């Protein structure tokens, strides 16, 4: 196979299947349909069931697999494939997803025409390539955040989503949480006035205080495949698993890992998914030891125009403790990060921002007045369900690829400003850096063949 297979998605599949059935009826041919294809009351038939493949099944990927297997037990999805570059993780996933075919190489998985949708939970440097390839093969995609590592990757992801008309949900699930919805509703209805500033706080990126020398990769790991689009380098145990987040090329530190949650919520609440800043000023402390090279501490200020507002990422910033200490204890609220929305009449605090979101009671108790502004509400406050509905109905998901990329761009640009040690000017319409040749080059990073966009 040299080129992408023609897109086949559930909609086109059902259309062609329907045509074939109708043709069979016309010709008087017998139609033998397995009983499990037919829906029964309370149990969807196979034709309503999304057929899913998982790419990356450790860490967050393991959580996604647990979710879809639970949905499989309810009969509304079918997990048929699992994939990982780590054979131990893959074997573990295969045990859980009984009957699913295991793959090391995701390209075998996405070339399967019976798969409608994929869930990608690989390290960040794989997100764009796998999303674009999957979309080009007609698959709907749920991809972990942050969406992309470079500006070029983000643009390619948006283009792939649009040309293939597939539903892409980025895993910044804060937007789907009830209290984030309530915070958005509260602010959208003018309860704190015009918001001119959003300040985010988060604790520092860890330092690699136990550096290790390069070594041979463990036998279960396909190191070449794990590296994928990144330039080749010897294996080092400090690249993975999980800690890839602290390496700039494969992660980018807390601003990308958690900024992709907290700033995603900020763009959503500020109704700014389709805009971008005009300038980015970052300062920070880069590590001087070990493999990890993401900024330990950093402050980034993003200036937006029309409307004018400022977004500040501070790592660490000024923490705002949750006021209900009993609730903190009972629910395990991680109050080490969040954002303050500064309106001209009042302010509102939104704590955490990922699978956990908490806001002040004034917003939680708020009821939208008649004629008031409404905002997107994910069905059952479930981020995956929002994606499933997007696939079935064609409506935009709450963290669609355009929004996911807009958020990732903030994190990419913040890091770039810190690394280069200078302020960047950004054209939010053309989505490119202005007036800085070196920074412009760094909007993309050539990828190792054949793991290219």
């Amino acid at each position, binding site marked *: 196979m040299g080129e992408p297979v023609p897109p086949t998605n559930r909609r086109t599949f059902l259309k062609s299947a329907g045509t074939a059935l109708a043709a069979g009826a016309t010709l008087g041919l017998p139609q033998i349909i397995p009983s499990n294809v037919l829906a029964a009351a309370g149990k969807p038939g196979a034709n309503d069931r999304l057929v899913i493949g998982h790419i990356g099944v450790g860490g967050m990927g393991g959580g996604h697999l647990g979710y879809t297997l639970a949905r499989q037990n309810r009969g509304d999805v079918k997990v048929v494939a699992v994939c990982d570059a780590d054979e131990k993780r893959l074997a573990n996933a295969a045990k859980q997803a009984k009957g699913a075919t*295991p793959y090391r190489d995701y390209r075998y998985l996405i070339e399967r025409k019976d798969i409608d949708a994929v869930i990608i939970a690989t390290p960040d440097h794989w997100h764009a390539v796998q999303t674009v390839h999957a979309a080009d*093969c007609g698959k709907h995609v749920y991809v972990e955040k942050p969406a992309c590592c470079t500006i070029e990757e983000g643009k390619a992801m948006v283009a792939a989503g649009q040309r293939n008309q597939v539903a892409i949900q980025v895993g910044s699930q804060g937007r789907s949480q009830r209290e984030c919805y309530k915070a958005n509703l509260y602010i959208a209805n003018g309860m704190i006035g015009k918001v001119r500033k959003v300040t985010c706080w988060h604790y520092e990126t860890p330092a690699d205080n136990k550096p290790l020398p390069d070594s041979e990769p463990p036998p279960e790991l396909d190191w070449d495949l794990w590296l994928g689009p990144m330039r080749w380098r010897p294996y080092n145990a400090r690249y993975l698993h999980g800690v890839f987040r602290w390496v700039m090329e494969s992660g980018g530190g807390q601003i990308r890992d958690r900024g992709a949650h907290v700033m995603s919520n900020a763009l959503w609440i500020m109704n700014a998914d389709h805009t971008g800043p005009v300038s980015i000023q970052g300062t920070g402390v880069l590590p001087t030891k070990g493999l990890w090279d993401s900024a330990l501490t950093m402050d980034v200020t993003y200036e937006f125009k029309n409307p004018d507002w400022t977004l500040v990422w501070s790592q660490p910033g000024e923490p705002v403790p949750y006021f209900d200490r009993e609730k903190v204890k009972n629910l395990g609220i991680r109050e080490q990060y969040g954002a303050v929305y500064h309106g001209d009449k009042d302010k509102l605090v939104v704590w955490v921002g990922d699978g956990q979101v908490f806001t002040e009671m004034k917003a939680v108790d708020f009821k939208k007045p008649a004629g008031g502004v409404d905002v997107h509400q994910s069905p059952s406050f479930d981020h995956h369900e929002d994606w499933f509905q997007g696939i079935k109905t064609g409506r935009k998901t709450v963290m669609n690829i355009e929004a996911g990329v807009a958020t990732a761009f903030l994190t990419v640009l913040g890091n770039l400003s810190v690394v280069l040690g200078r302020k960047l000017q950004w054209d939010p319409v053309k989505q490119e850096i202005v007036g800085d040749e070196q920074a412009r080059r760094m909007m993309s990073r050539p990828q190792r063949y054949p793991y290219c966009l």
Partner: protein
Amino acid sequence: MTPAELAAALKSKDDKQRAAGIDSAAQSGPAAIKAVCPLLGDPETETIRAAKRALYKVVHDAGKPGDAAKARAVEKEFVAVLQTSSSIPERREVLWMLSEIGGDDSVKPVAALLANADLREDARCVLQRIPGKASLKALNDALKTVPEEFKYHVAESLRKRGEKVSGYPSRRLVPTKHTSVQPVA
């Protein structure tokens, strides 16, 4: 710090001294390159990392808008290392530094490494990233000279640069790697 003092600081076993070297590297500018680059092939991992961090400070400082002369001076030093060093790790790092700061003067020495089996993939990526007609011509020329299997790589770069390439179609979606893990019934 003089270049020699900088190199000594980066080679130090003391974390603080290495950090001080990294922090002062930008001030040393192009003059630091010849002294620091050999550390990229040092047997001590933390020395390599410190040298890399220091050199990127130089690259990013020289890349500031409005100081083209400094950028060209840095490029010249890196090109000299590329042409004289025989160390693979050293040249691999220098290639990627040139991808951020190199211009037309880098193209020929980078393109020469397309003949080096250990470095050709890095060199291809760097030529893809350096803007301008010279790098584009180097990639087009390479399509006639590199080993047959590597022509697919070069063709991918040319397409990224907006060129139409006949033959050598993209193989990015060709699956190649099998697992030994079996499905569980």
